[in-house]
């Protein structure tokens, strides 16, 4: 399979470049081919959106990059190249001990559902100190001081008091800010935000996203925003990757992706998204559901059963990525016309 999504830019300038990454989950009911030949890259300071419906493999991708997949998850192919100070390392080959020094320090992650993503019986300040301590040599007082600074930097009112709070004593929005503070504690180069605003109300969503955007700009941090919310992705991301059933189906800068989607799935996804000017009846649901990823005879194109443009060729030949414009790639034999 040719997957030239990374070749649009030389590897050297990308901060992270994922190539041909495949992940399987070995379960009792069969092998789930959760990700297949995923390739993409992200550069310093860039904000990349990964969108797709639930179950498309977005979160698995994030966990695989960090090397914290569940016991059942196995990376069967590919490499995750991390470039720093002119050196490039394959994170998948890196010894666990070295990788641990990167996690939370250079690459970090924000999880959905912040209330359960924080240790329920440890004070949030202590949880910040735990992360700071394992990546720095600060003294006890300095650790606490830095933790308080972090709480202030994510605009938590009254950090002194919140330092001693337990997650259950805080609102969802505050918990998410703690989560952000935790992820940004060591000024990482790359932040993966997995559904950072799910479970938050709309006003809090905007505050959290703006906070992330500001902090990212301040620190020249690259951000991967994983979301199923197209509106959110279109507003905050420079470039977007669309995932479907463990494949990347389209990759393009934000504007062209929304104005001229080339993959039928992207087009349907946009047509199914509510917008202020659309009537409820204007929304077109995407028919069918994700294919069963445990099947042995999965078609090369995993969208085939939901696609009205599919032909014999899609069934027979390996999925091919076409470059339809500069930095615009689509994984389809019959992309939509402009």
């Amino acid at each position, binding site marked *: 399979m040719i997957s030239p999504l990374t070749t649009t830019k030389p590897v050297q300038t990308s901060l992270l470049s994922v190539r041909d990454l495949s992940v399987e989950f070995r379960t009792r009911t069969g092998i789930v081919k959760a990700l297949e030949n995923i390739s993409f890259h992200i550069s310093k300071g860039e904000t990349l959106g990964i969108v797709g419906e639930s179950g498309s493999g977005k979160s698995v991708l994030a966990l695989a990059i960090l090397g914290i997949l569940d016991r059942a998850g196995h990376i069967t192919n590919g490499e995750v190249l991390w470039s720093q100070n002119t050196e490039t390392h394959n994170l998948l080959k890196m010894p666990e001990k070295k990788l641990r*020094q990167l996690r939370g320090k250079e690459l970090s992650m924000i*999880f959905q559902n912040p209330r359960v993503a924080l240790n*329920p019986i440890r004070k949030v300040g202590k949880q910040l100190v735990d992360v700071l301590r394992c990546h720095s040599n600060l003294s006890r007082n300095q650790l606490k001081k830095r933790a308080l600074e972090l709480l202030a930097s994510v605009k938590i009112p009254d950090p002194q008091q919140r330092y001693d709070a337990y997650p259950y004593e805080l609102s969802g929005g505050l918990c998410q800010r703690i989560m952000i503070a935790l992820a940004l504690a060591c000024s990482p180069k790359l932040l993966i935000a997995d559904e950072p605003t799910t479970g938050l109300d709309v006003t809090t969503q905007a505050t959290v996203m703006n906070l992330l955007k500001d902090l990212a700009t301040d620190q020249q941090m690259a951000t991967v925003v994983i979301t199923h919310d197209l509106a959110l992705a279109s507003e905050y991301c420079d470039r977007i990757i669309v995932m479907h059933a463990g494949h990347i189906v389209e990759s393009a800068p934000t504007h062209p992706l929304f104005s001229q989607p080339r993959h039928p799935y992207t087009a349907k996804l946009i047509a199914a998204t509510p917008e202020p000017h659309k009537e409820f009846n204007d929304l077109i649901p995407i028919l069918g559901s994700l294919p069963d990823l445990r099947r042995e005879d999965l078609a090369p194109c995993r969208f085939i059963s939901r696609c009205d443009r599919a032909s014999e060729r899609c069934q027979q030949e390996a999925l091919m990525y076409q470059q339809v414009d500069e930095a615009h790639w689509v994984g389809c034999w019959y992309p939509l016309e402009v």
Partner: protein
Amino acid sequence: MSRPSTLSVVIRRIIAAIPSILGVIIVTFILTRALPGDPAAYFAGPAATQEAIDQIRETLGLNRSLPEQFIIYVGELLRGDLGNSLTTGQTVLSDLLTRLPASLELTLAGLLFSLTLALPLGILAATRPGSWLDHGVRVLATAGVSLPTFFTGLLLIYVFYFRLGIAPAPLGRLAILYSSPDQITGLFLVDSLLAGDFETFQAAFGQLILPAVTLGLFALAPLTRVTRASMLSVLSSDFIRTARASGLAPSMILFGYAFRNALLPVVTTLGVVFSFLLGANVLVEKVFAWPGIGSYAVSALIASDYAAVQGFVLTMALLYVVLNLLIDLLYTVIDPRAGVES
């Protein structure tokens, strides 16, 4: 952000326990009266005449109506009088005060032994589910719980006392050569240490090992299984993933984050196992001639010794209340959320 103070939790729990203690008093009173057997006849002996039996019945107050007997009983209870044991001739209170510490010491030692094995084994099994180690731990725990305690006890005596000769004779809490230390807590190990008498400590410790191990092996299964299950579920929770994503060291994740969260079910099980062992280790006490509360209760029951049986049940009920209180307090120490919702 007001958290309930420890004192208010304690007071609330004690008040909540009053109805159940009252219930226990009523139920044991009625149950002991409903048991077959006539204490007056037992006390008078097989050769006694009917008049002698009647006379004893009258001195014991057994000829009065049940409500009358109950009021007298409660009145005595309030004065701290648990009555006299017909079989030992002592007051029930003094019997219990000498025998309860013996059982407590044995049970605590057994649990301690069990915990020092169960926690590491449970954690190890949880970090490597499905491995040979996991299966080995399961086999060990199952064997421990399926062998009857009297069998394990006899086996240990046979091997360590009879064959190898490294354990002392299974004849109670102290060999005849030693005199028991002055009673402070009633726990020989503690009392001998307080008195600075290391020789007695050693002797008491030697006597304690085999029965404690016997009990501990029995408690191993529930504790190990709960530790394993609880650790497994905590290790797969979201906040552990966050900790891993933050690059925390595995030891910190395992003990600082996972273990403390996994402790709650373990503590609950510990309480259940403790109260179960305390009352149910009659067989171990018999095998090791341990002068504990379990064997006392059984002989009292056989002799229809009302006062002793009632005293035993009441003591167990009070112990249970105290134990639950301790466990609740332990909860609040481990989990800040405990006690918030009530």
